[in-house]
């Protein structure tokens, strides 16, 4: 779950980090009144709240010198899609004059299987280019997941990006808080870019947090507290699928795809392309799907307008062929849809599954290549 900038900053404040004074503007709000109520004096920054990286470059962040300008710019930002996405809210923030911009993030390094801190004395909008062109300027520091980030380590990182004196201590304290947030929220990523140097202090001008979806059962408050709808991160049909608990990604083509397991589902997409078709989606029923879930997935694609035909590719291990077949048959019966459906079924209890399907008039392939060729040719 990606958090908006304003949500990430609320969390940092809860952990005692000083962030620039700001006010959140929702659709329909009187921007000037909001700014006055919050007691914000220009210059101000108006920031589009969208869940995509690279907002600044895409024109989603504007510096303004007066409240009137803020109102005008806000009007523009409401209508300005950032990478195709309209903002769910705007954040009006006091502009903070600063001396330099740093970069700091914490992510999980998959190969090292440990959290890694990435820090650079060059922050701001060009961090991705800096990472490419001057990788040596990015300091990497691995953290022991049991010990957590020790104070001396945080100071070492600060030192390594060229900080000293009271600024070094301010940075080290900030980094330790960032690490606490990273573990408390079970985040995949916490980031501050730019992290401004203001005199002898660091101030996060931006903050980004992505929480691991698998851990959300322990962080219901994040979901419940959400005031701004998760606009734009997902398409309309992706939102619908998520509400039903289906891992679904919308694509550009016309062949609806269901597979079991992300690997096989992706390979099925690749195979459809290989034989000249275009997948309309990725839909993974995962491991051990029972008939009810299969039915839900098939019904979903029967309704999904982009999917003009459907290809179901299941190789059962923990997933049982008879359950899959029952789910398919139930979905087709209940929908009354006449969308063409091609099924490939192999693995655990495939004979029984095949029998159930054939009794309902659905032929099941065992050879996936034959099945793909069939669905592409329909």
């Amino acid at each position, binding site marked *: 779950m990606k958090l908006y900038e304003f949500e990430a900053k609320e969390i940092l404040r809860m952990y005692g980090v000083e962030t620039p004074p700001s006010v959140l503007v929702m659709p329909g709000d009187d921007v000037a009144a909001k700014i006055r109520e919050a007691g914000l004096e220009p210059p101000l920054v108006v920031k589009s709240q969208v869940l995509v990286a690279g907002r600044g470059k895409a024109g989603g962040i504007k510096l303004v010198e007066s409240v009137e300008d803020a109102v005008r710019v806000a009007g523009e930002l409401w209508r300005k899609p950032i990478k195709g996405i309209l903002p769910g809210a705007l954040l009006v923030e006091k502009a903070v004059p600063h001396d330099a911009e740093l970069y700091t993030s914490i992510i*999980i390094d*998959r*190969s090292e*299987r*440990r*959290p890694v801190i990435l820090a650079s004395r060059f922050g701001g909008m060009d961090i*991705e280019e800096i*990472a490419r062109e001057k990788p040596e300027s990015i300091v990497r520091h691995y953290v*022991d*997941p*049991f010990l957590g980030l020790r104070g001396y380590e945080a100071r070492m990182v600060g030192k390594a990006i060229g900080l000293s004196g009271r600024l070094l201590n301010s940075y080290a304290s900030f980094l330790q808080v960032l690490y606490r947030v990273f*573990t408390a929220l*079970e985040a*995949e990523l916490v980031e501050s870019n730019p992290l401004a140097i203001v005199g002898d202090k660091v101030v996060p001008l931006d903050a980004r947090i992505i929480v*691991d979806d*698998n*851990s959300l*059962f*322990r962080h219901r408050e994040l979901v419940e507290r959400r005031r701004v709808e998760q606009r734009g991160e997902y398409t309309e049909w992706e939102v619908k699928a998520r509400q039903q608990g289906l*891992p679904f*990604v919308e*694509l550009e083509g016309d062949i609806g795809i269901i*597979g*079991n*397991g*992300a*690997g*096989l*589902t*992706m*390979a099925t*997409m*690749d*195979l459809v*392309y*290989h034989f000249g078709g275009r*997948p309309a989606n*990725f839909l*993974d029923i*995962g*491991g*051990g799907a029972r008939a009810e879930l299969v039915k839900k997935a098939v019904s979903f694609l029967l309704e999904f307008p982009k999917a003009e035909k459907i290809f179901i590719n299941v*190789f*059962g*291990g*923990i997933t049982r062929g008879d359950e899959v077949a029952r789910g398919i048959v139930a979905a087709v019966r209940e929908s009354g849809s006449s969308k063409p459906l091609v099924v490939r079924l*192999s*693995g*655990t209890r495939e004979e029984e599954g095949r029998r159930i399907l054939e009794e309902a008039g659905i032929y099941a392939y065992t050879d*996936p*290549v034959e099945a793909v060729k069939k669905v592409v040719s329909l």
Partner: protein
Amino acid sequence: MAVLVDSETRVLVQGITGREGSFHAKAMLEYGTKVVAGVTPGKGGSEVHGVPVYDSVKEALAEHPEINTSIVFVPAPFAPDAVYEAVDAGIRLVVVITEGIPVHDTMRFVNYARQKGATIIGPNCPGAITPGQAKVGIMPGHIFKEGGVAVVSRSGTLTYEISYMLTRQGIGQSTVIGIGGDPIVGLSFTEALKLFQEDPQTEALVLIGEIGGDMEERAAEMIKKGEFTKPVIAYIAGRTAPPEKRMGHAGAIIMMGTGTYEGKVKALREAGVEVAETPFEVPELVRKALRR
């Protein structure tokens, strides 16, 4: 010879009374795996398919000291606890089938196991099988056949797909390991390759990767350095997946341009690995490699 699981494997099933645990305990027994005990807290004293159930791993080990492997079917919120329990009891190989475990949990129990000298396979994986000797996992046993080709894979279903194709073409497997599709897994490609390098039964290796992460690139680096010397055939899933989108429950996501299909294929080809365009070309490439 074999890798990780063999005829000496004695299995404990954690979560044996659950739907999956019980179904697959039976399937493992039918395959001929020595499943000697199960654990479900609160269900101690009962039996599942003739296998005695205990309340704790320690109690199971007291009655069955021969246990050397555990397989975990415990639901995600409690699975990490089951892994710690197995590792603390001294079990050296723990196969974690459970999907949806929070990544911070996985990071901690994987590090803990390594410090204690235990190997974790998974989580979110199909397990491992040495055809004809033992299967510790959820894969359909009949699709495998004894032989000389190792299969190591991040995807469960593609493991079955490709192994079954090999079998139908008469190419048997030494050991097949599904390492799991999560961002962090206990056993990596490079670690699996180290094991297969030492295994005299393994003549060639099939590596099934996915977009996301850098595990395939690390394996390529190892092959390039000459630390794995047997022929390798690879397939990478996700060529047509859009960037920055998570494909399903798995860790398959291209972030900031790293972990792309092209990058992985390039690294593998530069290391002399044959990369198949579709999973269905793998058997032919394996056959060619074995002829050489």
